[in-house]
């Protein structure tokens, strides 16, 4: 394999990893504050991507020509709308079931995911078909010998890195982050320290869902196409990535996301004849890794309290 092709694969892997990581971070955040897995997370991503697309359609029909302005607006609308949706889900579906068996939370978020997915499929105009997503970033590329470094990929990657670093800063350096970490560590102690538990949970769900919307827009910009099933796929892989990285740790989730993307890229490189099977391979990797390290790469110490 020549260097150009290799660099191309690395770039694809990095983009894929960034999307997985952004989804995985959401799972990790939710698990941190509430100890729940929100299976509808991936479908929030889908709704976010479609919200962005609908906003774009609205903007163009209103006569907006600037790509940059359009990008900023659709990103802001999608992120804010999904943050609000995440808070609603947390407030009315996840929190009321805190004392119920864990199975109920699992089922309710799974069914909610179906509701979101089906709503997009049924109520978005021709939502059952893949929709083209506008290319809003500059398409120019830098020629590096055999490899074309596309500017839009670089921009998306740096935006992703900045987001994750920003999130880490928020969690570790601000009062809000301190409160989130306190709630994650011990809910009752956090409450006695005067932290508004409900508010912190809602804010965390807003942040996680906003990240999902960001990942959804990124997915649309990268593939120039979205369909109602992307969330389900990204949700499953993102959840697996969060588990591999050890649920509850942001860097672990990022690491898990890139690990999955790496494995997938290596799979496509080693088995070019089976390119049709790449999704099958991705899910098989999820199952295999879960069988190998069910509680993450860094083994969780399991102790049962009876």
């Amino acid at each position, binding site marked *: 394999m020549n260097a150009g092709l290799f660099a191309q694969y690395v770039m694809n892997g990095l983009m894929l990893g960034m999307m997985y990581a952004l989804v995985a971070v959401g799972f990790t955040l939710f698990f941190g504050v509430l100890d729940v897995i929100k299976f509808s997370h991936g479908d929030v991503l889908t709704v976010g991507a479609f919200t962005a697309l609908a906003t774009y359609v609205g903007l163009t029909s209103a006569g907006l020509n600037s790509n940059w302005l359009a990008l900023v607006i659709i990103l802001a609308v999608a992120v804010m709308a999904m943050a609000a949706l995440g808070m609603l889900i947390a407030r009315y579906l996840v929190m009321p079931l805190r004392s119920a068996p864990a199975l109920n939370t699992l089922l309710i978020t799974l069914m909610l995911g179906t509701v979101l997915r089906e709503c997009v499929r049924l109520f978005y105009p021709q939502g059952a078909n893949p929709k083209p997503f506008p290319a809003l970033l500059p398409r120019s590329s830098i020629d590096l010998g055999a490899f074309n470094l596309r500017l839009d990929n670089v921009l998306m990657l740096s935006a992703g890195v900045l987001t994750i670093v920003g999130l880490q800063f928020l969690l570790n350096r601000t009062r809000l982050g301190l409160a989130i970490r306190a709630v994650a560590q011990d809910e009752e102690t956090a409450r006695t320290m005067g932290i508004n538990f409900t508010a912190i949970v809602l804010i965390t769900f807003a942040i996680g869902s906003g990240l999902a919307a960001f990942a959804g827009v990124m997915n649309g910009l990268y593939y120039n196409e979205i369909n109602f099933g992307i969330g389900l796929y990204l949700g499953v892989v993102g*959840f697996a990535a969060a588990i591999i990285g050890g649920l509850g740790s942001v860097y672990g989730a990022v690491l898990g996301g890139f690990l999955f993307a790496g494995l997938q890229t290596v799979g496509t490189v080693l088995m070019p004849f089976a390119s049709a099977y790449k999704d099958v391979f991705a899910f098989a990797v999820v199952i295999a890794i879960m069988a190998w390290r069910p*509680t993450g790469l860094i083994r969780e110490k399991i102790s049962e309290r009876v």
Partner: protein
Amino acid sequence: MSGSETPAKRDGTARPSSWPAIASIGVATVYLIALLGAEKQSVIISLLVAGIAAVLAGGWFGIFGGVSRAFSEHEDRMGLLAIVALLAMAAWFHEDHFVLLLVVTVLLTTVATLGLNIQFGYAGVLNFAGASFFGIGAYTSAVLNTTAVPHLLVPLIGGALAALIGSVLLLPVLRTRGHYAALITIAFALLFKTFLEVNDVLGGPQGMPVKGMTLFGWSLNDNVEIGGITLSFYMSYFVLSLALLAVAFVLVRRLERSWIGLNLDALRLDETAAACFGLDITRWKITAFLIGNILIGIAGALFGTVGGFVGPNNYTFADSLILVSILLLGGIGNPWGLIVATFIVIVVPEKLQTIQEYRFLLYAVMVICVLLFRPEGLLPRPVRRYFPGWRP
């Protein structure tokens, strides 16, 4: 127990009469015949509204307590009566291909949900790939019905294959718990559908036709003529499915009553406590998972043969969720509730064309409502009873 005193007599209370249950089966049969026979959408809608109103009124006046008591007291008799009622229904529609196909679908889906019930309801092993294992059975019938394998064996092979392929998932499922195990079965459901779409051997996205069954030289895909009356060819499949359902139902009921069922219950309610009492958790989880998958696979193989066609779009993750919805709506662990819930979930969208497209959405919303407001399901599982008249 004949001749000796029954425990109920010792209590001094009479054993409840079986009439409420008999009457309810009679009413349900007449109602279903009317609903299945109705063609006009307006008639169907008014029948459905009337049905909902009747159920609400019945609940308001507390009729269902008596009915469910009568059911649990006279379960064997009610089972026979339900079979008679279904046969009567089939006899009424003996020429109507579509209605019979619908009823066969309900029967086979019930068998599949009974299998899922063993995993979910008794052992608490999560399986969100029910439709995939159903599909494994169906594809088995598509492949094997053209070969020399005796056709009566094909469903059994389908069941065995579903269990075999399912056992690949056993290692990860056993090593993980709760949500993690759910993730593995979801990943498998997605993998299965994608695999069916991209492979070349099993018909790819177009799917493949399934040859009808031939039993002892008699093709089940021919209409039957008895004394001048033409019976739809689905009638033979109906009888076969009904027999399968009866066997599966008795099996699940016996399993629940036996010490195996007791072990599975203990496992679901508290794994740690069950292990402390010496139960081999792994062994019972494997048992439940395999028995459940065998039932799902057998039902799937028969369903593939009846439908005459298999394709990737019939065995998606959304279909698996429909199976889980049936389980939740019927009340996890209650086989009688499953039959009722399957009838509702399968028949209503088929008859009411306007909601056909919206069925995934509708049932997801319904399950969310059930979980929020009535988490035990519409017909909750009754307390285990070891002999008639016994009260805890």
